[in-house]
């Protein structure tokens, strides 16, 4: 029993932190009218590639560094803390789908190129309704002479515009299955959404007779496993973003003077910040446990990721609201970073199921256990 981070974990976290603090500049996004096009996605990514981040979760036999989810969380936390724009989440999600669903040949041909940064992936799983859990799909696949073709669309595809290959959940013969689709072919059209969180690229993808290669594993094998990992990443980003929101709120409360003293001397502010600190400790703890439970394939893995996602993303939303209140009117302007965190928090809360939806899942799991 030891719930503390090891020295290796701390080292990984510290190196990710100093790299991102040095390299990530959100200033271009703080110019009114900025969009995700100003987010330096490509430039940031090539630096992350140099650090080997695309291969963190890829096993060594496929050219990655085969790290655990706890290791990964050390890096994802720092990305969440700095809102570092780049296709990390899309690449991770696609990688996990391949790891769980692809044949050994498919893995051997694709994963080393992902690990080296040569190939970017994205996971096209949600539909226009926002539902990512199936059983149907707005994209339909049918068997052709040399493989499958896909028609229809997928929505809210994270990092699709950056991706070379899409891993797509499409309906075939009345059930959902998973396919590899070359994103650069003519039959695939990627349209970025006017997404409020401009630190992240979110797109719609339309398919017109797009050529597709089916993954061998079925939906029930792939999706719950991949979903739990995506939920962990969103929770980890959120817990770290919340910690950063707390830090910036505390700094400002010490600095800003009103009525002759720092506003942090007033209990109305102090108590909000104490509460935010409590929420931050809770969120981080929930994330660490979920990362451990998933790494160990513990029976509590699924309920723990639901707990982490529900708690951390909702606490992040609350904290970013409080943060703007503490900053006062200046925190409401485009030129401050506050809104970037506010928007990331809202987006993370809604993606792959709202906090309320995951609370339902928690109860469902408990009911099944009781039955």
């Amino acid at each position, binding site marked *: 029993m030891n*719930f503390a981070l090891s020295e290796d974990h701390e080292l990984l976290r510290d190196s990710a932190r100093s790299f991102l603090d040095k390299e990530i500049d959100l200033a271009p996004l703080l110019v009114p009218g900025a969009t995700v096009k100003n987010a330096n996605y490509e430039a940031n990514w090539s630096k992350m590639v140099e650090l080997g981040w695309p291969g963190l979760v890829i096993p060594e036999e496929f050219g990655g560094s085969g790290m655990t989810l706890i290791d990964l969380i050390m890096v994802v936390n720092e990305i969440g803390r700095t809102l570092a724009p780049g296709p990390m989440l899309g690449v991770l999600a696609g990688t996990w789908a391949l790891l769980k669903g692809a044949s050994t040949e498919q893995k051997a041909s694709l994963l080393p190129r992902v690990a080296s940064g040569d190939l970017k992936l994205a996971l096209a799983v949600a539909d226009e309704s926002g539902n990512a859990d199936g059983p149907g799909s707005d994209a339909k696949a049918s068997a052709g002479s040399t493989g499958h073709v896909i028609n229809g669309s997928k929505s809210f595809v994270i990092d699709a515009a950056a991706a070379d290959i899409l891993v797509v959940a499409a309906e075939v013969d009345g059930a959902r299955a998973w396919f590899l689709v070359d994103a650069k072919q003519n039959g695939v059209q990627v349209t970025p959404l006017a997404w409020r969180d401009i630190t992240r690229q979110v797109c719609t993808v339309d398919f017109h007779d797009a050529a597709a290669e089916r993954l061998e594993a079925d939906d029930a094998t792939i999706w719950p496993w991949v979903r739990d990992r995506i939920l962990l990443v969103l929770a980890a980003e959120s817990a770290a973003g919340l910690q950063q929101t707390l830090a910036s709120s505390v700094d400002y409360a010490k600095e800003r003077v009103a009525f002759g*003293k720092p506003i942090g*001397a007033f209990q109305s502010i102090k108590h909000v910040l*104490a509460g935010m600190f409590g929420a931050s400790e809770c969120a981080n*703890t929930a994330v660490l446990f979920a990362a*451990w439970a998933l790494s160990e394939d513990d029976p509590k893995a699924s309920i723990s990721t639901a707990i982490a996602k529900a*708690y951390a993303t909702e606490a992040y939303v609350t904290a970013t609201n409080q943060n703007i209140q503490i900053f006062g009117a200046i925190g409401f302007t485009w030129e401050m970073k506050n809104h970037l965190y506010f928007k990331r928090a809202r987006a993370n809360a809604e993606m792959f199921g709202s906090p309320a939806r995951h609370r339902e899942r928690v109860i469902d799991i408990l009911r099944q256990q009781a039955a």
Partner: protein
Amino acid sequence: MDFNLPPENDPRRLEIREFFEANPRPTGRQLAERGYTVPHWPRPWGLGADPELQLIIDEEFDRAGLQAPARLNPVALNNCAQSLLTHGTDAQRERLLPPALAMEEKWCMLFSEPSAGSDLGALRLTARREGDHYVVRGQKIWTSLAHKAQIGVLVARTNTNVPKHAGLSQFLIDMNSPGISVRPIIDMSGNENEYNEVFFDDVKIPADRLLGKEGDGWALTMAQLQTERVALSKAGAIWGSGPSARDLVSELIASGGIDDPLIRDEAAKLYIEGEIIRLLAYRSLSDRMNAKPAGPEAAVRKMVAAPHGQRIVDLAKRVQGMSGLITGNGAFKRTNDGRHMFDDWDYAFWFNPAVTLGVGTQEVLKNVISERVLGLPREADPTAKTPWAELQKSKLKTAV
């Protein structure tokens, strides 16, 4: 990182289990002789147990169906008696520790006064040295267990010529001393004797019952209030002793109450918080095993856990609708082993408002966290630097 708890076949666990099998109803003496009542203390009193062994011992008491010693004599075992190891005399240790650790003598904490609660340093009860004893005059309030305790840990003002915190001293007093009278407070639950008022009418205390030196009182008291044995609170209501969110959700599933979507979402929120509060406790346990200094987790856990517990019993009460207003009508069957009054859902609900008041109000706790952890400016206390006697004179002047 490893979140696995000590396994079932841990040899330390098996040894304790063997003892409980041979002694299914052990006396307090037997438990104390084996070091089980204060395992975290050094030998010969305890076992010098690391937090993991403490956790194992807690679990094995539970499994044997025995009340945790800390629950039976909380003031001595959780908070105060440990001060004797560092500040007591040999005679004090010899006289007071064996019966306390064997739970034969219960202790109570005589701290709060009618005009000194959150601002405990403003207490007024005085102890005046006369020859080989002190004479105590004044009043204490909110004293749990005063009616059952043989020993009281008393903070008194022994010097009025210094600022308020500097003039305090601590005494270990016999509760049957002439001049002490205990009056129960009937709290809003209708229950009496959970809390008491204690009056001191020129009570004589032998000078050898002073703990440490005169003027040590404030430091001793603060240390005792912050000493938290690494107890794995059950993340339940009423400081962890009452029903937990796990209890609530399993009762709601069993009764079908969970089918109401309005109840379900609240119950899920509570369940999630409860699980996280448990993990916070594990984390602080783990930090201490790694010899990290005790961090702010205990204060954070209390800040999160107190309102969490209040919401647990509150939701249970609302599930009952109007029938929950009938005295004694709990939402569900008693929790835990049912022996403790907080195992009763109805009583736990009506006791509930006390939880964010007792052992530091929620507001003071938030001040502490925002000042000591987040480094925000301290609350100013305009009375902190002035000698106590002067302060009283200026107060009188204002009053006139």
